[in-house]
Each structure stands twice: as C-alpha cells, then as structure tokens.
C-alpha cells in the first residue's frame, strides 16, 4: 500500500522528466467572487423576463413543466392541483426557513398532509423515520438556489431543513423560485460556486438538476424516472419571495 509521500515523490519525479506539452494556465478566477456574484444577480434581476423565457424553453426541452404564479400565496394551489391529478395526498417540504416562506397552512387548506423537514438535527430514530417518510411520499417541495437559463437547470444546496432526498425520492419534484435565482450561463454558475465556497457551507452537497431522471440504456429508448423523479415542476413566483 502506498502513502501520500510516495505518490507525490513519484509524481514529482515524472514532472522533472518532462517539459510541458505547451504553455498553459488554469482559468482566471474572480478575486472577490461574492461581489461579482452580487453584481451578476443585480444585473440579471433587471432583465429577469428574458432569462425566464430562456429557462422555460430549455426546461421544457428536457421534460420539465413551468408554472407561473404572481405571489407565494398562490404556490399551494398549484401544488394541490398537481397532487390531486396524481392521486397524492401528502407532500414533503423543505423547512420554511429554507424555502423562504411557509407553505404549510396553504397546503393544509388544499387537504394535503405536509411533512415539514426540521432545520435542526433530530435523534437517530427520528432521522430513520424521516427518511422513511421522504421515501414513501409522492411529492417533494423544495426551493432553488440558482436557476440556470442556458440549460434549464435548477441548482439546490443541501443543508439543515433542506434534505437532499426531497428532490430525489418522491416521484414528483416541485421547486419554487423567483427572479433572484435566475442566472444565464454556466460561466456565471462558476462565479456563484466560487462565491458559495468563500464561506462555511451549510451542507455537503450541491445538486444540479436538469429535468426528470432519465435513461436511454435499453435500445436508446428515452425513459423517464428510472431512479429519481419521473416529473419535475418549477413554480416561478413573480413577486420576489419574502418581499
């Protein structure tokens, strides 16, 4: 078995042997990623309609469905309708602090049982029970940390109150966002990722989700929902959440 020192010694030996194939440098990184990210967000918020149109086109291309509502108060009605159409009576939801609003009363009014996720760590037994709940609930409701227009991608960070599997185990994933989440390009996502890593992260995972789970492994026939959700819905809230 090898050690770190052995590995590095051998690599350095090889590097000493060979000149570079050509002069090359890694990407230039933003010196103050937080500031650049804030500027990008501010600029984009002003032309959010363009970004949203592009997001919608790409999101629908990959099999997503976009719903447009005026206010967060309208979100439970959309979720209620989706649930009824699918014969579902319960939903798992991120904690209100992670969503930016509390959907529980509205969803209850839609006759839905809401399994809210805690924002503090419960004991081991409760953790097992919550996992079972997420695995058996047909709908998962989450927020979105960035919505990438270029590819129709929703980016979600894990952390307290925002369990990873809310967007993975339920057959239908519903995600809510507003104009402040929209970004245009992968290069801008690069800046966001740099910015997010300047501080202690709330969770260990960042997920990019581009439509429903898919496979083409049998005779290249496109099939949805092989492991993750069969359906992905995005609810765009026109009046910024929390304003």
């Amino acid at each position, binding site marked *: *078995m*090898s*050690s*770190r020192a*052995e*590995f*590095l010694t*051998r*690599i350095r030996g*090889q*590097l000493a*042997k060979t000149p570079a*194939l*050509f002069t*090359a440098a*890694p*990407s230039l990184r933003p010196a103050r990623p937080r500031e650049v990210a804030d500027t990008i967000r501010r600029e984009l918020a002003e032309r959010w309609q363009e970004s949203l149109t592009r997001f919608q086109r790409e999101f629908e291309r*990959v099999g997503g469905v976009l719903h447009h509502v005026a206010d967060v108060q309208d979100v439970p009605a959309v979720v209620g309708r989706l649930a009824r159409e699918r014969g579902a009576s319960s939903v798992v939801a991120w904690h209100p602090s992670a969503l930016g609003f509390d959907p529980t009363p509205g969803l209850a009014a839609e006759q839905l049982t809401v399994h809210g996720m805690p924002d503090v*760590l419960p004991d081991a037994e409760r953790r097992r029970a*919550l996992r079972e709940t997420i*695995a058996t609930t047909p709908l998962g409701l989450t927020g979105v940390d960035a919505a990438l227009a*270029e*590819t*129709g991608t929703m980016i979600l960070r*894990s*952390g307290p109150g925002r*369990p*990873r*599997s809310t967007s*993975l185990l339920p057959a239908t994933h519903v995600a809510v966002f507003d104009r402040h989440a929209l970004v245009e390009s*992968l*290069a801008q*996502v*690069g*800046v966001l*990722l*740099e910015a997010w*890593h300047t501080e202690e*992260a709330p*969770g*260990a*995972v*960042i997920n*990019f989700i*581009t439509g429903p*789970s*898919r*496979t*083409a*492994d*049998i*005779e*290249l*026939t496109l*099939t949805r*929902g*092989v*492991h*993750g*959700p069969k359906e992905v819905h995005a609810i765009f809230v026109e009046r910024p959440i929390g304003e």
Partner: protein
Amino acid sequence: MSEPELATPFRARAGEALHDGFLQQALTIATTKFIDLRREAFGEFPEGEALRDRARAIKEATLQRLDHYLEQLVDNVERLGGTVHFATTPEDARRIILDIAERTGARMAVKSKSMATEEIHLNDALEAAGVTPVETDLGEYIIQLAHERPSHIIAPAIHKTKGQVADLFSRELGRPDVPADPEVLTAIARAELREKFLQADMGITGANFAVADTGTVVLVTNEGNGRMVTTLPRVHVAVMGVEKVVPSMTDLAVFLAILAKSATGQKLSVYTTLVRGPRKPTELEGPDEFHLVLLDNGRIDQIGGTLREALSCLRCGACLNVCPVYRSIGGHAYGYTYPGPIGILLTAMLNGPGSVKDLAHASSLCGACADACPVRIDIPRMLIELRKEVDEKRIAPWTERMVFRAFAWLLGRPALFRLTAPIARLMQRPFARGGRITRLPLFFGEWTRTRDLPPVAARTFSERWDDLAREGRR
C-alpha cells in the same frame, strides 16, 4: 484478475463481432445517433470551440503542477472530515475498499457507473469478500445480471435488445412474462434498485472531476443513481484516477459546458452532483464516512511518458462513436475495460505496450477521434508511437517486423524502389482478379484475408512523372 475475452485473439473477437447481425445494427444506430446529437449540441453552442481549447489548457496546466493540486485536494478532503487513500495498483485499491467494507460491517454496496472500478475489477473482489455489489446504472445493472462487461463507456448495454433484457429480467429476477418494453423494463429496475439503495451500507462511485480548491468530488449522471448512492448509504467511497483533479470551480464550469454535449448531446446531464466530504453534522442525510481512493495504475508513469496526452481524457465516449473500427466491432472485441481509440491508449497505459500489439493497429488513423475529442487529444499520433514501441520492444511478431523493416530499407533506396514496380506487376499476375488482389500467398495472405489490395498500376506515378519529363511537359 483475468481478462476473460483474451482467451481468443483480437482478430477472432473482431471477426465474431463483424458476423453478429444484431450487434452490427445496434452499433450503427447507437453511434450514428450519438454523432448527430453531439453535432447538434455544439451547433447551437458557438462558444464551444473556444471552450474546448480552454478545457484542454486547464488539463495540461493541471498536469504540469499535479503534485500541487493533488496535495490541495487531499488536504481539503481531510479538512472536511473525509479520508484519502493512495492506490498504486488495482490490488491496492481493492484491498483499501475491502478494508473499509470490513471495518464498517458492510454487506451490500450500491454502485453508480464508474470506469475506474471496472478497471480494478472491484465487483469480483467484493463478492469474494462477502459484500454484494449492486450496479445501479440501468445499463450496468443489465450487464451485471447477464455477467457481461460494458461495451461502451457511456452506454454499457447497447449490444443488447429489449427482448434479451426482458428474458434476462424474467430469468434473474424471477418475474414471469416480462414484456419487451423499455418503459416496463425501466420500471422493474426502478423498483428492484430502490430497495437496494435503501438497504445498502456502502455507496461506491467514480468521479468525473475533483476540485482541488474545495475538496469537491463531482459526479455526472442522468438516472439519479449517483445521488442515491451518495445520499442513502452510511459510507461513501469514491474511486478516481489521479488525473481527474481540476484546480477550481471556475475550471469545473468549463468542463461541465462541454462534457455532456460530447457524450450524449445534452446541454447538461440531468444530475451534476458536487459532494464535499461526509454529511455535515447538522444535515439530516448523507454518509457518516467519506473515502476518496486516488488511483495510479500506470497513470503516474505516463506524466513523463508517450501517453501523457491521454491523461486529459474526460471519458465522454465521443471518440468511440466516430471511430470506423469501433463502429464495426463494438466494445467487447477490444477485450479490455476501455474500448475505442482512447481505450487502446488507456489499455497500453494500464497494462503496458504488450497488451496492445494487435490493438495498436485497430485504427485507420483517419483522425475522426481527434476531431471529436472535447479536449482535442491527438489519439492517432499516440497510436503511431505505440506501434513504434511495439516494434522496438520486439513485441510485434518477427514476420511483421521483418516486412516493415524490409519496406523501410527499400523506401530509402529510390533506384531499387523503382525496380519493384515492374517486378510486382509481373508477380501479381496470377493474383489480380477484376482489378483487385483478393488473395496473396504465404504470410502475406494474412493481409488479404479480410481486405482487398489494389494491384500495382500499369504505369506507376513515378513512371508517369518520368514520361511527362520526356515529353517535355514538365
């Protein structure tokens, strides 16, 4: 560990593939579709060409300071509470993973698709140690049930029909009357594997990238199995070649912009998962333990070797789809973990030049692979270098070496070479039929066994060139 296909020589394996009607059809359909999707994706993405150059520059820049970036990665993963292991050989890697399994009492391991774990033949070792490995990528699941090996880097089961998959599911899963419908077959796999995800103690993945600056391991999947295996089991083990490290998140964004477009023609794959160490203490889900196994297996020696460029490979499979040889014989005929043009180079890297004495010639050197490669790896150049090495190290058969040596000697003597045309014209007479030479005697027959030769022309180029001079027309 043995390479089962190698009991028969390459030529026999290729011949078998060429006579497999279904395989021929499946290969044509799949590779053509991948080529079209890729072309379309880059067609809509004008900045793609510049990004390919950028991506290649990042790979080369990373290699030039690989020690630095690896150290940074290792420090960050450890700081996040993960454990890093160093494996020089496949045996090392297997031992490390089996030790983790034993220590954590793992009985079942769910795996997302990983060429690195194929390369170290991990499944056999896990099984022998009493740990059940479950491949969860649908294609990999199918070939695991069938006890076969992947035939394409990104579409491992393209050689199987839906009828064959239905029969396989009926037989192996004890479900009678499974219809040959991809939708139903996928639903069955979903149900079977969902149970395994929830039961498994250990999740094993590869890594498409690892970001040095943040200690992040990046997994790209379409099915979501990469997310399952890094979310549900209590232990996550990621196995990656040392060359997969990239410096920063800014660099990662460049690779993400070209990887899926090259592989499947998608703008992005459905799931890109960035994993930083084990579950954070306040998080509800995620593994309690995170292990990163850094794999050498011949890679480090190539930093200063002839195959250095191949260390930039992203494993997208684009060069397979465009290769006239791969399109004709498919992945299994190559006989090793990595098929296709890049596969030949990687096989030489992992198993030494002796392993590719035939495979080095399984290329028309047409250059389609270099054109398709998202990071513009000059595969044909390295194939030629391999052929040279195979010759110089006397790995090639003596007849082949003798023929080429004689040919080289002749080419270096123009006066003598000119004499060969009339001699060849005389000697080919009994063999030329209808403007082709279809059969040659002695060991030359090996060449004409599978291809025709055009006969030497009635007047060769140099003869006509001299004619022109005589006629005063040049």
